[in-house]
């Protein structure tokens, strides 16, 4: 289907199904129950899942296929965000032009940075991309204030021109980004028994775009172009001596990857029309690296899983506090309860980043293939057990 083989088609369909039913799947606990705070099915978080999923898919096209580790990928996310807000300000509050312009601007920006950075490889490439991103961050926060709004950031205003909206003005409020009048923030809520499911416009728009992005990524992975990129990672010298010019391949890959970041940036401002320089900082670049590695770099689904995993735990972990821990461990004797809470305390709430750092290190050390490898290992374990069972059954029969 869609030019994919059976395995890839089922992967795409699976992701599509998961994404479509996410508002239900991510809310497994009834409202008001003690575990309801672990529900992730609210619009803001789900939007982040899919938007960062796009960002990570794009990063993975570069790092996963070619092995070029960009430490400045957030620059494209930020460039896309700024471009998106300007489109919302100048053109129309409709998000479609904003998203398209974000993607294009990030693409242009990545042509410039990629053309220079790709002259070097290995750690030099990482440092060059990092240097460019830090430059962009520093400039966005200072000199470029007229374009970027400086440290406070750029946002939409009531009296923006919005030339394509032909002077349509709604009351005294700043109009919210919308898709042909359908506001991104609007949701349809469906209470079923004890559960409350929220279907949000912004989420579904982002989800559809993520599915398209995911589909394109699959095609790239399976294409001759993708094979060349894997060959770059494997042995660049052989590729050169096989008559292939690696530079345009790398640049094309870098730009595609940058456009994914731009698309993610555009969607971010479509959900919340605000862009600040911190979106370009190296910590943001580091985050997408974490996502891809944690999920499983070089695999198709890994980065999406990683993005979801990090964003989910960031939200949930930081909500757990000592009171909650005391509640959970209340069944234990007081002494043990207090010790347990004291041990866990540094890793929850504000300590979430500590947990993340430790998890990340563990993955690099023990599980270089990330969550995907973990899944495969568990799968193999079950398979082996199954075959052990069958052999156990056949032996006595003989």
């Amino acid at each position, binding site marked *: 289907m869609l*030019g994919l083989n059976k395995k890839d088609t089922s992967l795409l369909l699976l992701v599509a199904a998961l994404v479509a039913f996410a508002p239900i799947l991510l809310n497994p606990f009834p409202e008001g129950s003690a575990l309801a705070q672990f529900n992730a099915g609210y619009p803001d978080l789900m939007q982040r899942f899919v938007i960062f999923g796009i960002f990570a898919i794009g990063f993975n096209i570069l790092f996963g296929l070619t092995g070029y580790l960009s430490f400045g990928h957030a620059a494209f996310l930020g460039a896309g965000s700024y471009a998106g807000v300007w489109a919302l300000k100048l053109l129309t509050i409709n998000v479609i032009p904003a998203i398209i312009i974000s993607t294009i601007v990030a693409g242009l920006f990545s042509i410039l940075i990629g053309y220079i950075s790709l002259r070097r490889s290995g750690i030099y490439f990482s440092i060059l991309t990092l240097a460019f991103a830090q430059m962009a961050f520093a400039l966005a926060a200072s000199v470029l204030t007229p374009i970027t709004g400086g440290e406070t950031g750029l946002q939409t205003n009531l009296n923006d021109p919005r030339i394509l909206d032909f002077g349509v003005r709604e009351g005294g409020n700043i109009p919210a980004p919308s898709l042909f009048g359908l506001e991104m923030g609007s949701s349809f809520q469906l209470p079923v028994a004890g559960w409350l499911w929220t279907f949000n416009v912004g989420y579904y728009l982002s989800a559809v775009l993520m599915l398209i992005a995911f589909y394109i990524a699959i*095609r790239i992975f399976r294409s001759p*172009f993708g094979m060349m990129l*894997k060959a770059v990672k494997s042995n660049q010298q052989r590729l050169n*001596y096989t*008559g*292939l*010019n690696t530079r*345009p391949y790398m640049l094309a890959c870098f730009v595609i990857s940058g456009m994914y970041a731009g698309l993610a940036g555009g969607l971010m401002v479509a959900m919340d029309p605000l862009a600040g320089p911190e979106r370009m900082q190296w910590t943001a670049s580091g985050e997408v690296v974490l996502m891809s590695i944690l999920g499983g770099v070089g695999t198709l689904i890994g980065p999406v899983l990683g993005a979801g995993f990090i964003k989910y735990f960031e939200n949930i972990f930081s909500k757990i506090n000592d009171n909650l821990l005391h509640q959970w461990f209340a069944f234990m004797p007081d002494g043990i309860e207090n010790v347990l809470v004291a041990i866990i305390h540094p890793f929850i709430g504000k300590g979430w980043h500590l947990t993340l750092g430790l998890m990340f290190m563990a993955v690099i050390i023990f599980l270089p293939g990330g969550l995907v490898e973990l899944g495969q290992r568990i799968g193999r374990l079950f398979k082996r057990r199954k075959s052990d069972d069958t052999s156990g059954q056949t032996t006595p029969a003989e």
Partner: protein
Amino acid sequence: MSILEVKGVNKRFGGLQALGDVNLSVQENSVHAIIGPNGAGKSTLLNCLVGKLIPDTGSVMFDGQSVLGRTPYEINQMGISRVFQTPEIFGDLTVMENMMIPCFAKRDGAFEMNAWGSVLGQKDIVAHAEHVLEDMNMADKRQMMASSMSRGDKRRLEIGMCLAQEPRLLLLDEPTAGMARADTNNTIDLLKEIKDKRDITIAIIEHDMHVVFSLAERITVLAQGTPLVEDVPENIKGNPKVREAYLGEAQV
């Protein structure tokens, strides 16, 4: 007719004269060996032919066109394929994928943005790669990861990848270095077979005299960066100059 013409090539590294006034002419459809003791400048010469190094002076003409100042991939597209001393293949890819890449390079040139179609949908490429694999007796290994093969098989794959491009000149850099005797003999047989089957010029840099005298139709002896003598193998064997250059290396 000569397909490769090297004239007056000099190359210095700091104080070291690596190549001094090298003249070399390789006839089309011949097997030409370049031999010499360690440090004679064989590898430097080879690197000057494929674009890795640029000579300080002199000219290198391939089929009437200069290769100087061109990048390795451009020179490869002109029709020169190179086999490395240690097999250079795509270790993380399957044997089949390894073989398809030179097929793409042959069909599409140095760059082709084909990010939409599937690799396996390229029927002509698949057929071409399959054909070369069968030629190399490697069809049964097509799904193997290239890095997991034996050294001899890697060498075979690398030579196959070069042949898939249908080059006019195949350059081999000590193709049997570090190989066991059996593997070396296999490689010699493979190269003989290649020579018999197609119109191809082979230039081989070699240390192992057994390989050289089994294959070469003409031999150039390089010593201290300068060609000492160029002749047919029979005359090289008894040449006193060559003995002198190899003094201490008794096999000659």
